[in-house]
């Protein structure tokens, strides 16, 4: 949606620009296809075989994080509000302790493949079902935002219409997005996670380079950094926005929407990002990747993604005839790049880097969403419908096929998700609203699930349903329900409380969660009493029916608005009181001890034990250099000499990581296995044929072996 009086652009790109972009895309796709050959199983397709070094994952995250609509949306906010566009990139450290020493080790060691699977292990299958729905909506929405940004980035390069077989076809946003979606689907469908990681690695470097190059050209264009700094008004130089104004960009709202809900959402429930960390060779490498990314890469990225807007603002002050202050914010990146880069080759390169990075984000999300589909929709349904047992290879082959078809379907849904987001003035606001609205229930559920042992299935399901119901009511009556949390932010009737609604949503979800846990004792007493009644099943069936009616009414009232706030609020409170009783009645077999073992932060040692299958060996050890020898055998264990085992302080059964010595490969040629019985050939490791295929080891190359635990 364009704002009134906004200047929009078309046909900025020359033929050279298009040629450069097509060549760039061809190279990226060839690169992805080349690394796609390393995909041998669904584990490789989704997780890249858990083998990569921290630096490789750090750089590949750049393309996922930075590529994600950032150039367009942060340039837009940089153009409208100045350097405070960086604040969302520099507020992610607060949740790092929770992530590094809570969620990351749990997801790796508990061997869950997706977030909903965690919900089943930690709570119950019904929790998994609801989490799957919420997560799929979140991921598809995210893909929609990516496509919307891609479309908005491409439109200024294209003519307003073009002629085909005598017909004049207008270039529309949805048309452009559909074409992009088809191209995006190609290498993700045939490549998999290894292809995505390596494509993103290349693009991570190129993106940073292209963004900094743009900044350099912009600063040069304006006469140096001091000149640029002096041109900007003081309020535009500030690193943080004004506390509570304007409604479209204010500190308090963005702190809760991005710094809290967004940061937890990005670190804890972005399956695409989690899969990157899970592709690291160890938990500690994942920690390094996350820390390096947030400490050093994100601040640089903040400059990379926003600088076109700042430069555009400075140019609009000095020479408003070149860049009008009324330019469309979402187009400012393209406009500024075309002005300051001078050469069409360089402009084409920057545009190619931008669009390819956006595609990286989208393809990572598509890959992640198809992982959720296979794991949390296909497998449970298949298990329910067909009892036919297939061997591991056949199962893997079928699931790989399903994953590829799912990728295509998800791409199509992502395109459809663009429609509601396009109603916001800028991509930034669409994304802010999306984060504020969709992340809180899952964020609260994951967070409390990991850090609060007392959090039960009844509490998590009530958080999901009761929390969402209160969120819907808040969206309907923002002036009454969200206003108490507004920090003085003015209500904009067309987009009420785009950001600060995140605080209301978090509070209501957390409030419902705490109430459900707090009243757990009473709930159990009530369920025990109900079970003693003669017609228990009928009573509970009636209560369940009443609950279903209440939730149907709540949803209908959100869309049709047929009731006032009070009766709906009373109905929601009633449902929050009753729902835990129903869940406690129907969900049987939940044991707080077994369902939290290895799945909460206080039992990470149990998770390590589960991961290894025996007691971890944490004795101090050294890495050794070895050469490999292929020996017959099918066991998944590799054998070292007694002397080497001693140096590594390892025992048979301990976990070992074997990797090509060349560090620049980042762990591409490596494997995980367990130590077998020792032999007497010092400096030689015995591996079997399958190990050599999985590790992709080159003949004669030295390998490094290290004990995991």
């Amino acid at each position, binding site marked *: 949606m364009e704002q009134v009086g906004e200047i929009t652009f078309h046909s900025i790109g020359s033929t050279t620009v298009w040629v450069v972009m097509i060549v760039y895309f061809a190279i990226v796709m060839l690169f992805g296809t080349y690394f796609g050959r390393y995909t041998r199983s669904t584990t490789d397709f989704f997780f890249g075989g858990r083998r990569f070094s921290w630096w490789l994952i750090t750089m590949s995250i750049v393309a996922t994080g930075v590529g994600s609509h950032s150039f367009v949306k942060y340039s837009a906010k940089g153009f409208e509000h100045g350097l405070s566009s960086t604040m969302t990139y520099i507020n992610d450290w607060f*949740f790092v302790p929770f992530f590094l020493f809570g969620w990351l080790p749990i997801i790796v060691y508990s061997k869950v493949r997706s977030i909903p699977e965690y919900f089943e292990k930690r709570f119950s299958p019904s929790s998994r079902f609801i989490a799957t729905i919420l997560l799929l909506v979140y991921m598809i929405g995210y893909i929609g935002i990516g496509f919307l940004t891609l479309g908005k980035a491409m439109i200024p390069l294209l003519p307003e219409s073009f002629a085909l077989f005598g017909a004049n076809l207008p270039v529309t946003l949805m048309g452009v997005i559909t074409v992009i979606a088809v191209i995006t689907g190609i290498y993700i469908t045939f490549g998999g996670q290894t292809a995505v990681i390596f494509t993103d690695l290349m693009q991570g470097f190129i993106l940073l380079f292209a963004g900094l190059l743009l900044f350099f050209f912009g600063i040069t264009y304006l006469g140096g950094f001091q000149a640029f700094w002096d041109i900007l008004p003081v309020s535009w130089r500030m*690193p*943080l926005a004004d506390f509570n104004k304007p409604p479209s960009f204010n500190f308090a709202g963005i702190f809760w929407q991005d710094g809290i809900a967004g940061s937890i959402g990005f670190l804890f429930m972005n399956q695409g990002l989690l899969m990157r960390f899970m592709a690291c060779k160890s938990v500690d490498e994942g920690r390094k990747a996350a820390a390096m990314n947030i400490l050093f890469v994100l601040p640089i990225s903040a400059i990379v993604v926003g600088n076109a807007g700042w430069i555009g603002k400075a140019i609009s002050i000095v020479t408003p005839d070149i860049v009008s202050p009324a330019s469309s914010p979402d187009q400012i990146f393209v406009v500024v790049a075309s002005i300051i880069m001078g050469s069409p080759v360089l402009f084409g390169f920057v545009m190619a880097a931008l669009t390819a990075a956006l595609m990286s984000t989208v393809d990572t999300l598509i890959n992640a969403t198809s992982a959720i589909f296979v794991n949390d929709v296909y497998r449970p349904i298949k298990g329910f419908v067909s009892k036919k047992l297939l061997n591991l290879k056949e199962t893997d082959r079928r699931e790989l096929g399903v994953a590829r078809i799912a990728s295509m379907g998800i791409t199509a849904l992502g395109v459809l998700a663009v429609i509601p987001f396009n109603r916001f003035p800028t991509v930034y606001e669409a994304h802010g609203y999306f984060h504020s609205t969709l992340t809180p229930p899952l964020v609260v559920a994951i967070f409390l699930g990991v850090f609060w042992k007392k959090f039960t299935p009844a509490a998590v399901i009530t958080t999901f349903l009761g929390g969402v119901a209160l969120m819907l009511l808040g969206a309907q009556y923002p002036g009454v329900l969200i206003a108490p949390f507004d920090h003085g932010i003015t209500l904009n009737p067309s987009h009420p409380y785009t950001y600060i609604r995140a605080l209301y949503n978090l509070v209501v979800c957390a409030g419902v969660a705490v109430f459900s846990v707090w009243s757990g004792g009473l709930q159990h007493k009530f369920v025990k009493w109900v079970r003693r009644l003669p017609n228990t099943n009928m009573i509970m069936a009636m209560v369940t029916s009443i609950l279903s009616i209440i939730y149907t009414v709540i949803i209908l009232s959100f869309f049709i608005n047929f009731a006032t706030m009070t009766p709906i609020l009373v109905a929601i409170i009633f449902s929050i009181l009753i729902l835990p009783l129903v869940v406690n009645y129907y969900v049987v077999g939940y044991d707080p001890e077994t369902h939290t073992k290895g799945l909460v932060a206080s039992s990470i040692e149990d998770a390590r034990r589960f991961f290894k299958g025996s007691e971890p060996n944490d004795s101090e050890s050294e890495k050794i250099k070895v050469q490999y020898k292929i020996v017959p055998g099918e066991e998944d264990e590799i054998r070292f000499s007694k002397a080497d085992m001693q140096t590594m302080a390892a025992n048979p059964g301990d976990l070992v990581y074997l990797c090509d010595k060349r560090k620049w490969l980042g762990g591409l040629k490596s494997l995980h296995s367990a130590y077998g019985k020792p032999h007497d050939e010092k400096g030689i490791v015995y591996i079997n044929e399958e190990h050599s295929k999985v590790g992709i080891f080159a003949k004669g190359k030295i390998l490094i072996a290290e004990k995991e635990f």
Partner: protein
Amino acid sequence: MPFSHTWLPYIYLYGVGGLLFGSGLIITLKSGSLDLKRQHHRNWLLILLYGFIYFMVMHALWNLAALEILSLKTSVLIWIVFMAITLTFGYFKLTKKARA
């Protein structure tokens, strides 16, 4: 420049953010997932604290430069000195054990 655009967001960011960060440290320490008996977990604790101070100093210097309390050059210079000292200290601290 109104206080609501200068230091209020800064105080709020590191006040509320600091409470969340501190509670993260306490919860992970109490749960034992951040286990200070392990050398590399002690290193991680230092990195976590460093990260918090790193962002706090970065934003403070930026604010001072934007408000022209410090010149841009002085702010950048202080930032470089801060980075140099902390990274050198961190390098020696983190690699002390390996060198021993």
